[in-house]
C-alpha cells in the first residue's frame, strides 16, 4: 500500500503527541494541586504530644495549681522555691476543706510521708514510698509536695518545721535523681503549710497510702507529714 508510510508516520505523530500531551497534563494537574492543596480537616490533624490530663483536673483545681505554679517559682525563672502558708491562703482563696478536697482524687496516685514529732528526717519507709511515687511519673508534668506540721507548738516553729519537711523531700529527690533528671527543679512544686491552713483530718490515715502502715495514726500524726503526688494536669 503506497500510503502506508505516511499513515505510519501519522500514527506515530498522533500516538507520541497523545502520550506527551497526557503526561504533560497529568504533571501540570498535580503541580496545581501541589500549589493549591485542598484544605485539611482540622479534626484530622494529628494531636501534639502533651502531658496527661486526668479527669480530676477541674477548672478550680487548675486555677489553684496555676496560681501556685506562678507564685511559687515553677512557672518562671524566679529563684524563689516553694510557697509559704500565707501565700497559699491568698492564692488559693478557698477554705481549708475545699483546698484539701482538691487533692482527694490523688488518693491512689499520691501518698503521705509521715515524720516524727518535731523532726524533718525522712525514715526508710518514707524514702521508699517517695522513690516509688517519683519513679511512677507517667505523663505528669508537676510533682507536688505539700508539707505540714501539726497544731502542737508555736506557729512560727511549725511553719519552719513544715518548710524543713518540704526541703527534706526536695533534697532526697535531688540527691537520688538529679543525675538522671537534671530538670527536677522545673518539676517540683512545693508548699509548706503551718497549722493555720488546711490541716488534714484523721480520715487521711485510712484513705491514703502513707509511709507508716500498721503504726498508730491520728490527727496529730497525719499532719506531721508531706503529701506527695505527681499531678496529671496540663496548664
Amino acid at each position: 500500500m503506497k500510503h502506508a508510510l505516511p499513515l505510519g508516520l501519522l500514527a506515530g505523530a498522533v500516538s507520541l503527541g497523545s502520550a506527551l500531551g497526557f503526561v504533560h497534563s497529568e504533571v501540570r494537574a498535580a503541580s496545581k494541586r501541589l500549589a493549591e492543596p485542598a484544605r485539611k480537616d482540622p479534626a484530622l490533624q494529628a494531636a501534639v504530644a502533651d502531658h496527661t490530663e486526668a479527669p480530676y483536673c477541674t477548672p478550680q483545681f487548675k486555677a489553684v495549681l496555676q496560681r501556685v505554679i506562678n507564685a511559687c517559682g515553677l512557672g518562671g525563672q524566679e529563684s524563689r522555691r516553694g510557697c509559704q502558708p500565707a501565700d497559699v491562703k491568698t492564692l488559693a482563696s478557698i477554705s481549708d476543706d475545699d483546698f484539701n478536697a482538691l487533692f482527694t482524687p490523688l488518693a491512689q496516685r499520691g501518698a503521705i510521708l509521715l515524720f516524727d514529732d518535731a523532726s524533718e528526717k525522712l525514715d526508710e519507709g518514707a524514702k521508699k514510698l517517695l522513690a516509688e511515687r517519683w519513679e511512677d511519673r507517667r505523663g505528669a508534668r508537676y510533682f507536688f509536695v505539700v508539707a505540714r506540721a501539726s497544731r502542737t507548738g508555736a506557729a512560727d516553729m511549725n511553719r519552719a518545721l513544715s518548710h524543713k519537711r518540704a526541703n527534706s523531700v526536695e533534697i532526697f529527690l535531688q540527691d537520688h535523681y538529679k543525675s538522671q533528671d537534671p530538670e527536677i527543679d522545673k518539676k517540683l512544686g512545693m508548699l509548706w503549710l503551718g497549722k493555720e491552713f488546711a490541716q488534714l483530718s484523721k480520715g487521711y490515715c485510712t484513705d491514703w497510702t502513707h509511709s507508716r502502715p500498721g503504726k498508730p495514726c491520728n490527727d496529730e500524726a497525719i499532719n506531721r507529714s508531706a503529701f506527695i503526688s505527681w499531678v496529671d494536669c496540663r496548664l
Partner: protein
Amino acid sequence: MNPNRTRLPGVLGSVASALGVFFSAFSTHDYALHLDRQLHSTHCSFVPGLSDATAGANACTAAMYSPYSALLRERFWGGIPISLFALGAYAFFLAASVYLLTAGNAASRRAWQGFGLAALTPLVASGVMFFLSLTRLGAFCKLCVGLYVASLLLAVAGLSALRKAGGSPVAADATLIDPALAAPQVPAGYPQPAYAVPPQPSTLEDLGLIPTGSPLVIPALLAALGAFALGPALIYAAALPDYTPYLTGCGKLPEPNDKNHALVKVTGTRPKEQALLLVDPLCPTCKNLHERLVSEDIFEKLDAQVAIFPLDNACNWMLDRPLHPGACELAKAFLCGEPAGKARLVLDWSYANQEELAALGKAGKDQLRAKIRGRFPELDSCIDAKETKARLDKVLHFAVDNKIQISTPQLFLGSSYNRVCDEDTDLGLRYTLGIMAPHLEQP
C-alpha cells in the same frame, strides 16, 4: 504468501501496543497523581478503567513506592517513573504496527527486521521487572502484569516479523521480476481471449516478495524507539514543579538534646548525618519507611537516635485507645536491647514479623510476651522492670518537650533536626534527603 501470515505481526503488534499504552498510561496516571505529595488510591486491576482505584496497601502501591518504579529519584522529586518509557515505547510500536499492517509486503525486509528486533526489547524490560517483583517485592501488581502480557504479545509479533523477513524470497527491486511472467497484454478493443490466463503478479507484493530496503532502516527504527521512549520522560521532567519550598516547612525539634538519656542510639555502619527517628514497632508505615531507608542504602549512613513511641495507651498516656495494642511491650523490649547492642535487632525483628506480632498484640499481652520471650529470652526480666517503664516514660516526655505530633513515623535530620515532612517520606524521600542532608548522597 499467506495474507494472514503477512498481517499477523501488524495485528498482534497493534493489539499488544494498545494494551501496553493502556496499562502504562494508567500506571503513569497513578504515579503522577502522587506528585502533589498527597496520598491517593491506585488502580490495581486488570481492567483499571472499569474498576475503582484501590485505597491503602496493595501490590501496585507497593511496587510504586519501591525503588524500582522510577529512575533518578535523587534528582527529581519522585524520580522518573519507568512507566513513562513504556508509554513512549508502546506508542512507537503502535505506530510501527499500523505501518506494517497497512504496508504489508511493501514494507522492506529491513523494516520487518527492525520491528522484530525492537519488539523484543519490552520483553527484556518486563523480564527484569518480573524478576524484581518476584524476588524483591514478593508481589505482582496487576498493571505490571498487564504490561508483561503486552510485552509478551509484542515479542510474539516481533518474532513473527523476523520470521517473515528471513523466510521469504527477497528481491532487491522490481526489475528482477521476470517479464515473461507478466500477463499478455490484449490490445484495446479486442475481447479477452477465452483461455484467459489468470492475472499474473505485477508487483513485489503480488509475488510475495519483500524489498530489502536500506540497511539504515534498522538503526533508524531503534533510534525512533529510543526517541519515543524518552519523549514522555523528558516532558515529565520538564513539567515537574519546584519542590524545594515545600521540603523544609515541617518544623524542627526545639529541644533535641536527650537530657534524660532515654533515646536509643542506632548508628549505621557508615554514619554521615545525624538523625532522629520517632517510630512505633507495630506501625506499618514505620516499617515501610525503615525498609525504604534500608533498601536505598540510607539507614547505614545515619547516626540515628530512635525515640520509640508506641501508639498504645497501655503505656502512652497521649492516646485514649490503643492503635497498636502490644506496641508497649515491643517498645520496652527495644529499650532493653540497647545495653547488649540488640536494639536494632529487636526493631528489625519487630518489623519483619509485624503482622504476626500485631495479631498477637490484639489477642492479648501474654501471647505477645511469649513470642518476645521466645526470640529474646534474655530481655524478659528487663521488660517488666520499673526502670524500663520509667525510661519509656522519659522517651514519651521527650516527645512532649519537643511538641511532636502524635504520629509515626517521623524523621528529623541534621544538626538542627529538621523534620522531613510526612509527604516526602515515600516517593520523594531520595530527593528530599538530597536537599536536606546532602552528605547522605556520598557513598
